[in-house]
């Protein structure tokens, strides 16, 4: 393709605005301006806008994260200056000056808004997702961010970084094409014995106890990573919607908390306090949170949202008025309890409410200790199925499908399966119902698990798995995979995709479940025994595409095509984010919100 010719055409044509109907778009974010589809400044070499990356074809200048040239005011300005200066040649040296002019004029740090919660589970995550979608729908470039997230549900970004799944979902709400590690620079994955795996900028940094995390890591590398990511995101986006962690008013650890008000201060964010009314005491928690903050931080709280109300909002109105009077902070609105299935964030909230007992197909998920990546199962909640998390061996015999999910500690999970009798209960169903092992669950289904270096369990070990597959798991090869992959479901040839994040690898004699496309050609993945209905894979996200989901559900004999969804989960989520944004828009006083939180924006 002749890029210079394209740029020449663009220079002649002038401003054209966004092109929402483009078959390739949006390349960066929803609402972007496409006047300069081919950048007249490429390769600018400006590190504030792009970076050199290494690809199989060598080093190239990547503009994936540059939004500057795709913002309408910038495009209009450049188009008018091009006309004034009568620039027609793509190699005109004056173009470079236009880039700097436009940066000086328009590149101001984006507006940061932070949602903090009066308690955990207040609804911060969904509020951030909803605000991202609301602001994105208005045509702004917007990104979510959580400086520090503790979760065992993680995903891999397209640049190979590991971040919390919920931030990936919020990025989807923000309609971003290429979220990277900056939206969750610190990910904490709890391990056993009080140790935590610390992931910084998407890569494993180290394992720490609480003391070394807060007293050594946080004041140095921790705060640095947070500051750096906030700076980058504010440069790239017009709005940065941040999520706090837990409550911002944990006064006993206030000076060590880099997930709440300190991050807000770094980003100069205006904050919204969200309070879950479900447990009662909402007014007290709201007032107490605000009053316990030091005056400078208190000033940042510019709005309050009550969340999760079942019942009539008018019952809260008098109290809300009183709270406004006491705090001087406006109540932006009252969000009702939302009945649509939303992705779950952490195992603390895995409880009876996650059991929907009305579905036609009964899927039993073995509730392993340190259960991880159970977001894999989220797509199933949109089908006519019941997803039942259980640690009761007796539940297995009523299952239509058994899933052994991922776990942070495979050998420990295996010990638990032995001691609880879950191993025999699962094995008894072999050949009767589909048994699917994902990641750690797959390792559990194998024959022997060798960890001579103690990489998984901390101490060297060798254990017998359930022996459902003729396969061996080994941790001594030092493999630690993180990648986004696509390929086909071997049995049907249909497309599927997923991502891998695990330590250890499996050497298997079984037929492969998937065939992956890689730059080195096709690669087999997973194990399958069709006659015994056994499926094992390292891939997460396998139920997202309809192929494998449909294949397994059909195997139960209870599948009626008309009753099940053939949608890709990504589309379901997109829909869900719109519905969520609709609920927030209806429930919040948007005039007040825009005046307080967006007025200072661009």
């Amino acid at each position, binding site marked *: 393709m002749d890029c210079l010719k394209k740029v020449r055409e663009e220079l002649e044509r002038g401003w054209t605005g966004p092109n929402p109907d483009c078959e390739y778009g949006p390349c960066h974010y929803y609402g972007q301006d496409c006047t300069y589809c081919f950048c007249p400044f490429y390769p600018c070499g400006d590190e504030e806008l792009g970076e050199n990356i290494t690809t199989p074809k060598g080093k190239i200048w990547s503009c994936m994260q540059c939004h500057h040239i795709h913002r309408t005011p910038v495009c209009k300005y450049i188009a008018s200056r091009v006309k004034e200066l009568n620039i027609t040649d793509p190699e005109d040296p004056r173009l470079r000056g236009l880039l700097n002019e436009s940066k000086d004029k328009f590149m101001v740090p984006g507006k940061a808004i932070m949602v903090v919660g009066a308690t955990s589970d207040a609804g911060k995550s969904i509020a951030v997702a909803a605000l991202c979608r609301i602001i994105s729908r208005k045509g702004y470039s917007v990104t979510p961010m959580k400086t520090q997230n503790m979760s065992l549900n993680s995903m891999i970004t397209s640049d190979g970084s590991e971040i919390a799944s919920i931030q990936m979902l919020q990025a989807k709400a923000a309609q971003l094409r290429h979220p990277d590690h900056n939206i969750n620079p610190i990910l904490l994955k709890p391990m056993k014995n009080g140790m935590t795996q610390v992931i910084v900028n998407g890569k494993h940094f180290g394992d720490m106890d609480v003391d070394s995390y807060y007293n050594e890591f946080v004041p140095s590398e921790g705060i640095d990573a947070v500051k750096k990511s906030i700076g980058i995101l504010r440069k790239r986006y017009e709005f940065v919607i941040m999520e706090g962690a837990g409550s911002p008013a944990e006064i*006993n650890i206030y000076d060590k908390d880099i997930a709440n008000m300190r991050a807000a201060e770094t980003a100069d964010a205006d904050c919204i306090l969200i309070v879950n009314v479900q447990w009662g005491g909402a007014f007290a928690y709201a007032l*107490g*949170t605000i009053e316990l903050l030091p005056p400078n931080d208190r000033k940042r709280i510019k709005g309050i949202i009550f969340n999760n109300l079942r019942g009539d909002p008018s019952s809260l109105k008098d*109290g809300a008025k009183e709270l406004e009077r006491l705090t001087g902070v406006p109540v932006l609105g009252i969000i009702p309890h939302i009945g649509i299935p939303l992705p779950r964030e952490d195992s603390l909230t895995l409880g009876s409410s996650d059991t929907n007992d009305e579905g036609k197909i009964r899927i039993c998920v073995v509730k392993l200790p340190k259960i991880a990546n159970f977001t894999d199962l989220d797509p199933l909640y949109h089908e006519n199925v019941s997803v039942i998390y259980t640690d009761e061996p007796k539940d297995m015999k009523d299952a239509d499908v058994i899933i052994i999910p991922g776990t942070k500690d495979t050998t420990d999970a295996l010990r638990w399966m032995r001691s609880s009798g879950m191993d025999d209960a699962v094995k008894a169903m072999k050949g009767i119902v589909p048994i699917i092992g994902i990641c750690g669950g797959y390792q559990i289904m194998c024959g022997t698990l060798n960890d001579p270096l103690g990489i998984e369990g901390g101490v060297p070990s060798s254990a017998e798995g359930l022996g459902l597959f003729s396969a061996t798991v080994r941790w001594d090869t030092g493999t630690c995979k993180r990648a986004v992959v696509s390929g086909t479901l071997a049995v049907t040839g249909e497309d599927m995709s997923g991502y891998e994040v695990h330590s250890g690898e499996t050497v298997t004699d079984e037929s492969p479940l998937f065939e992956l496309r890689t730059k080195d050609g096709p690669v087999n993945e997973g194990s399958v025994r069709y006659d015994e209905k056994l499926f094992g894979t390292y891939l997460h996200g396998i139920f997202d595409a309809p192929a494998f989901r449909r294949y397994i559900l059909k195997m139960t004999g209870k599948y009626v095509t008309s009753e099940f969804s053939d949608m890709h989960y990504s589309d379901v989520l997109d829909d869900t984010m719109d519905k969520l944004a609709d609920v927030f828009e209806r429930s919040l006083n948007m005039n007040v919100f825009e005046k307080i939180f967006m007025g200072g924006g661009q």
Partner: protein
Amino acid sequence: MNIIFLGTSSNAGKTLISALFCRYLRSKMIMVSPFKALNLSSRSFVTDDGSEIGVGQALQAWASDIRPNGRMNPVLMKADGGKIKVIVNGARENIDTSDRGSLLSRALWSFDELSDMFEAVVAEGSGSPAEINLRDHDVANMNFASSRNIPAILVGDIEKGGVFAGIYGTWLLTEEKNRHLMKGFIINKYYGDKEILKSGIGRIEELTGMRCLGVIPYIDVSLPEEDTFGSAKEGYSDIEIDAFIASLDSIIENITEHIDMEALVRIASGSSA
């Protein structure tokens, strides 16, 4: 000797802590009765005299080595197929539930009777006492406590986070004329190193004048949940009751590590902690 345990939210642990304190007083040979002015629950227990009371008060009665009776929970509001049934002093009465004044006077009447009969009455509040939108309707919390000058202890659940905000906010929203009754607070469901909480606790003590009377770990006792609208089990087997009492006794053996029981006794006796 009277005391009331209030919660910063529902499920903060009022019921269990009240039961523990009843059991502790009983172990000191003090005749004690539990009390909850108003209970909103779908689960009830039928007493010997045919009264319906909340299951929490039945359990607390057993912890006090006495038989449950209707006075322990004079007003029980039961959700029943979308409607709310109001049971006053054990009998289903057709009364105006919006007339909280008359509900409060009936509750006080029962409380006074218990006060005459027992050396100590250990009361628990309902939900949060700081629901400012419902302040005029409050029967079970500060309206009750202030009517009889009962010292109050606030229980906050640390598990869901924001416990300092919950305690401080509840205290701030307590009407000034009643704040002198708020004597102390207890932090419930804590797993970690207590040392970490110290500075936060000190700050709340300084701001409110309340004293921290305990930091207790998650206590695993098979207490039936009160506020969920699940299936109502009307009775317990002797085995279940014995197991419950035994688990309270085993907790009380080491309770002084977690709760300053003697300070609670002093507060209940009307002296300062």
